[in-house]
């Protein structure tokens, strides 16, 4: 028997839609603050305490602006691509065990890791469609770059996501989390580092942010968007960043497992550890973003095919060998 009120609460409030959106806004604020402090600035300061409401103010302001649809655009795709990108990413978040179990109880199934990785691809394709349908030269170039980058970096990303799967001998996310009494980041640090680099490329952050390089292609695939559609497009990007950090947390850092088990309120402690780990990854990712300059698009592609992909295959072979011959003996 399904407990419907609990189900609705979990999907809509915690740890579902509302929690994910508010957490995304919070992570956006953390990113802007970290970036500002690294550049010796203050960052948002006067919107709420320490500017913590800045992403919410931006979001509401964009919602109240006029929406412009270019007359040559493919209207339906242009209209629904940002919403679909956002909803696909939030749906993918629902499979990650935020408070120890996935958002919808019992939704986890054998092989849902592959399903979640496929949802990431669909979300990226929605971002491509958003740029392509607006028929602006800058949007088209930005969209083509999204696609070029994503086609290259999706292969190492999926291969590296298989490393925890091999270590846990399962493709189920909940099993992967449950088998991490020792985080896989310690068992396979080479895959962890590669996964973070690949995730930077997948999330289009520096040094791989060529799809929306301001000095070359204005705002990339977002160029033509305004008003509410821009709000959802930007929110989808921020949710994507949180999702990437959450995926790293789940696959390599042990998800909601804490270093110290607590007997009471496991959901609360699980959420706390999960949020802390995601924040660590978000801050780390923002550090990399600020530290590195942008690569050119040809350099991005070459880095992928010449370095990341061979290293990925090597790390997969190394992990497999260790997982079958060394780790069982320890």
């Amino acid at each position, binding site marked *: 028997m399904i407990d419907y009120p609990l189900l609705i609460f979990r999907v809509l409030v915690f740890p579902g839609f509302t929690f994910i959106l508010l957490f995304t806004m919070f992570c956006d604020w953390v990113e802007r603050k970290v970036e*500002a402090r690294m550049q010796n600035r203050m960052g948002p300061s*006067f*919107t709420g305490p320490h500017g913590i409401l*800045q992403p919410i103010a931006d979001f509401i302001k964009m919602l109240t602006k006029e929406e412009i649809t270019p007359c040559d655009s493919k209207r339906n795709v242009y209209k629904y691509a940002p919403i679909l990108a956002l909803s696909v990413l939030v749906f993918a978040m629902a499979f990650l065990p935020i408070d120890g179990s996935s958002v919808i109880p019992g939704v986890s199934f054998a092989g849902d890791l592959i399903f979640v990785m496929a949802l990431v691809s669909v979300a990226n394709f929605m971002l491509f469609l958003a740029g392509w349908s607006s028929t602006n030269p800058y949007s088209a170039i930005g969209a083509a770059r999204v696609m070029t980058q994503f086609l290259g970096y999706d292969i190492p990303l999926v291969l590296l996501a298989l490393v925890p799967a091999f270590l846990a001998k399962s493709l189920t996310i909940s099993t992967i989390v449950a088998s991490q009494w020792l985080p896989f980041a310690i068992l396979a640090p080479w895959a962890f580092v590669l996964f973070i680099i690949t995730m930077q490329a997948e999330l289009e952050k520096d040094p791989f942010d060529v799809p929306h390089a301001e000095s070359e292609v204005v705002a990339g695939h977002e160029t033509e968007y305004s008003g509410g559609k821009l709000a959802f497009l930007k929110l989808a990007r921020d949710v994507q960043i949180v999702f990437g950090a959450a995926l790293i947390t789940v696959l390599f850092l042990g998800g909601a497992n804490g270093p110290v088990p607590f007997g009471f309120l496991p959901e609360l402690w699980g959420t706390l550890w999960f949020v802390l780990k995601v924040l660590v990854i978000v801050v780390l990712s923002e550090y990399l973003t600020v530290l590195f300059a942008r690569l050119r698009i040809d350099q991005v592609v070459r880095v992928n095919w010449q370095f990341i992909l061979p290293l990925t295959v090597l790390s997969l072979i190394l992990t497999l060998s260790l997982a079958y011959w060394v780790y069982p003996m320890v």
Partner: protein
Amino acid sequence: MTNLAMWARLKSPWVIHFNSGACNGCDIEVVALLTPRYDVERFGIKLEPSPRHADVLLVTGSVTKQCADRLKRIYDQMPQPKFVVAIGACACSGGVFQGTYGTLGGVDKVLPVNAYIPGCPPRPEAIIDGVVKLLNALAAPPAPPKASEEEAATEAPAEEVTEVPAETAPDAPEEVKKDAE
């Protein structure tokens, strides 16, 4: 709801910068706003690359005839509600280029200007003050312009905020349309 929208609008004015034939002096001062010393992101002000994302158009330079229709087009590409800030003596009135054959002399010949920030170039503090005055003018209920405002303009740094209803954008003068061809 309206209060919420107004709060959001005041807390996150995204700007786009357009050079309509400036000597780069004012542009450097605009860029200086983003540096750690002035850091306008404290107030939620972000420099956006695309006019579709922006709320405030910062125009520098006396508008050259080549630039006039481009400036108008950039303005038309911005979504409502939108505001124009003329930065520098050239953008306010044409400056030293006033009356020359190649320029129109002032942004208000082409666009409705919400705030004038004189100076050659204006200091970054003056630009921040001008934008803050523009935002305060938005938050306050619409009032008839007072004659006493001209007295304040004599004090340095001199900023004057002229309120123009953004919704009723007057069309460009006939000569602009003719020259822009």
